[in-house]
């Protein structure tokens, strides 16, 4: 495969590109899904191709071809170069320096998730489903996924990097309905479960079968719970909902391409400005956020990003102050700060974009969930995301959770359903007054982070402990 990448890079440079890189990506993925005691889907996917990115007189070109062949490589390179030469605009682009590297990276794992038999996967899903059986639960579903990506990156700077990324994950869900109520509980996370860059051992560790009875019971119990009250109060969020909060209100706004407006047409921009670096108060002094593409098990972990920049760990927010952005070589050069390292593409047919890698809220000294709750006279504790929406600058958000409980005098009270909370990002994070301890910090991975046109799905992990926020508006209604 390496010679195809080299052929593409040579063809692009020969056609006038001042810089070129080529990525061959070979993907294999497997999905097993069951619903209500039947197999919903067993699917085995493979995809391969080459993507060639060129810079001609400051203009980008990118073209790809499914054919991992001499013809496919050459034609993609020439199409990309032709486009760059025809592209409208001013074209003033420079790239932060990166050292030419020859290297390899492989996900450390114990058991290849693609080697586990489909029959075993079906059996696991059906056993988990069985455990979720409960009065009023009318939809039970479970799925497991396995994903392997082998990619080779070659650039005109002389880099040649080979990486093999393996992911495993899954999730279970119970839905209960009655009259006009629709209630859902998920484990270990909503909207696609949780995945890790790991082997089958990650799925086994999730213990779907053990968690299933609670998931079914809670879905059913929610039908008899009272609606979450409205008002302004103290909110304690579990680790799972915290990950969505971090993703939407810290991860996306600190992507430097959004700050520079290049996502304006789709996902939006950011309330942050480039000169906010080192100056903007993002939240309370308890807020410490780190981007870390070296986190063991993280879906955003790699040896090198899709521009050939090595993995790194760097602060984004320290003691509540903005200290860093997620960058590409281009945006880092424009800012004059950072070195890139967050460029990731969804397979061979998409151009790399600035993406989150693994973004974490660092643990605090708030202790356990019980300790966070003990210091609340009147408030709510909320678990697991149900709905999410945030504005184009990542300021005004409204999130719903699957389940909640009132907190009275430091103890959990009655269960509440259909909880929502809303806020404005820096005001909300300014209300952060406790973060749980390291022993309560969890890492989960999501595979549905959308960005770019054409759209790209990003695989991202977040780590967080439960956390407590004061003066939060809850109970938004239609």
């Amino acid at each position, binding site marked *: 495969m390496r010679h195809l990448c080299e052929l593409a890079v040579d063809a692009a440079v020969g056609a006038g590109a001042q810089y070129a890189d080529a990525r061959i990506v070979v993907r294999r993925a497997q999905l097993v899904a069951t619903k209500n005691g*039947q*197999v*919903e*889907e*067993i*699917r*085995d*996917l*493979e*995809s391969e*191709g080459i993507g060639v990115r060129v810079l001609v007189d400051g203009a*980008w*070109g*990118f*073209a790809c*071809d*499914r*054919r991992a062949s001499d013809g*496919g490589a050459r*034609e993609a390179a020439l*199409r*990309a170069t*032709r*486009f760059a030469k*025809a592209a*409208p*605009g001013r074209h003033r682009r420079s790239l932060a320096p990166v050292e030419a590297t020859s290297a390899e990276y492989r996900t450390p794992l114990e058991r290849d998730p693609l080697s586990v*038999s*489909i029959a075993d996967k*079906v059996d696991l899903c059906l056993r988990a489903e069985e455990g979720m059986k409960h009065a009023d639960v*009318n939809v039970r579903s479970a799925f497991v996924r396995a994903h392997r990506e082998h990619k080779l990156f070659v650039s005109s700077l002389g880099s040649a990097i080979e990486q093999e990324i393996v992911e495993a994950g899954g999730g279970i869900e119970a*839905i209960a309905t009655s009259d*006009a*109520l*629709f209630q859902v509980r998920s484990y270990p996370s909503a909207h696609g479960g949780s995945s890790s860059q790991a082997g089958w051992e990650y799925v086994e560790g999730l213990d779907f079968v053990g968690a299933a009875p609670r998931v079914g019971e809670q879905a059913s119990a929610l039908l008899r719970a009272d609606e979450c009250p409205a008002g302004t109060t103290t909110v304690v969020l579990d680790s799972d909902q915290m990950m969505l909060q971090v993703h939407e209100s810290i991860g996306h706004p600190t992507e430097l391409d959004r700050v520079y*407006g*290049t996502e*304006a*047409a*789709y996902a*939006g921009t950011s*309330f942050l400005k480039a000169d906010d670096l080192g100056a903007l108060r993002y939240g309370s002094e308890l807020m410490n956020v780190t981007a870390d593409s070296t986190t063991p098990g993280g879906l955003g972990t790699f040896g090198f990003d899709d521009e050939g920049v090595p993995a790194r760990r760097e602060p984004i927010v320290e003691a509540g102050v903005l200290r860093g952005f997620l960058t590409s070589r281009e945006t880092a050069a424009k800012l004059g700060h950072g070195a890139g390292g967050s460029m990731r593409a969804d397979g061979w*047919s*998409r*151009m790399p974009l600035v993406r989150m890698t693994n973004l974490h809220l660092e643990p605090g000294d708030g202790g356990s969930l019980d300790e966070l709750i003990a210091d609340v006279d009147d408030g709510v504790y909320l678990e697991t995301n149900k*709905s999410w929406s*945030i*504005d*184009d600058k990542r300021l*005004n958000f*409204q999130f719903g959770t699957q389940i909640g409980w009132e907190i009275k005098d430091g103890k959990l009270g009655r269960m509440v359903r*259909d909880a929502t909370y*809303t806020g404005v990002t820096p005001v909300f994070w300014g209300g952060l007054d406790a973060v749980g301890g390291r022993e309560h910090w969890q890492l989960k991975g999501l595979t549905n982070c*959308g960005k770019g*046109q054409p*759209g*790209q*799905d990003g695989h991202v992990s977040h780590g967080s402990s439960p956390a407590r926020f004061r003066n939060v508006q809850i109970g*938004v*209604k239609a």
Partner: protein
Amino acid sequence: MSESALELAQRALAAAEGDEAEVVVQSERSGFARFADSEVHQPTLIENAVVQLRLVRDGRVGSALTNRIEGDALRDLARRAAEAADLAPPDPDFPGLAQPEPYPDVGAYDEETASFEAEEQAQFAGRAIEAAAPLAAYGFFTSAVSELAVASSTGVAAHQAMTDATTLVIAAGDDASGYAERTTWRTGEVEPETVGREASEKATRTRGAASLAPGRYAAVLEPYALGELLQWFAWDSFSGLGLLEERSALCGRIGERIADPKITIADDPLDPAGLPKAFDFEGVPKRVVPLIEDGVARGAVWDRTTAARASNGVASTGHAPPPPSRVWGPMPLALAVAAGEADSVDELTQLVDDGIYVTRVHYLGIVNPREGVLTGMTRDGTFCIRDGRVAEPLLNLRFTVAIPDLLAKVPGLTRTRQLVNQSQFYDERYPQGVLCPAIATASFNVTGSGSAPGL
């Protein structure tokens, strides 16, 4: 593309070994000229063909997908699908594969659009950018030729070549932003200059935006806003699976009045003003499906699996989704809202008298599917309506609305309709959009304010 998608599908079918086999092929040659700050920054030129084989062996179903089509690749695909099927438990609910049927004759292919190359795509982007000046332009021009083919051991041999093109522009400065788009299957109708000018003109009126207190307001929604809201409502509420799983706001209400009598909505994949399709991803002919007629709930769309599960005599309406989305159930991807009698959007603002004007919405979330409750933000052109006219600009507003409430009292809809793009271009190319007018509603629930117009 020397080998057609149908020829490729039949070649894959010949390599399959099972009691029944079905092959779906999607191929695309597309170009995307995405721009920001008036220059192209993310071009993407794609050549791809994807083959999905679904095999039934001894009552067991398995599928495999590849984009390798040379040499032994299709035999390898057949082997992987057979492995998946053989290791699966029997599926007693599998309804069998579709039988051959005649397909409607639809358009949706334009030779000029199919022949567009990288240079032309870059030029169209440039024309939109220039028309948005002096404001900076953010958006894209894209065009594609794609093919869909379904071939099966039951004799289905369906093939359609499609073209599509979209120009989308946000014209913006630090304190202003406006939006416009055109989607069509003919590049000759995509009007990059018109789109650029419309976005720029809208943007210049958004400077100095003010906040608005939360509350219920009468509102005029442009087709961009109405189309996206209805598409999100449709995922659960107009889906047969949504009815079966009791997620739909239409549950138990088929035959009841759920909207103003002015509201008629269908899924109409055959309308040449939309993005016409002849058949679905199971090879079943596309049918026009009434969803709401004169305010009365009429039904939902179905694929073969959900129709069989319903056990009430419904049949597939030709709405099986693309293979990666099969678990989500049948999808209405060609919503069409009947036009009203208002000659212009201005006439709608006169009907509203006092309220708000919404150009488009952003980042919707489904809060409660059973009640059809969505939340989201307005964006790129939100205004007050005072004394029947569009007045001062507003900050982007957070809304939380139940779609049945939004449609309950409708003073009017425009006579003209616009095709609003609904493809975000993830996965394989499959153009889709909503054909709808602008609407005046008596109730739009504002629950907060957010960002100001502009970058």
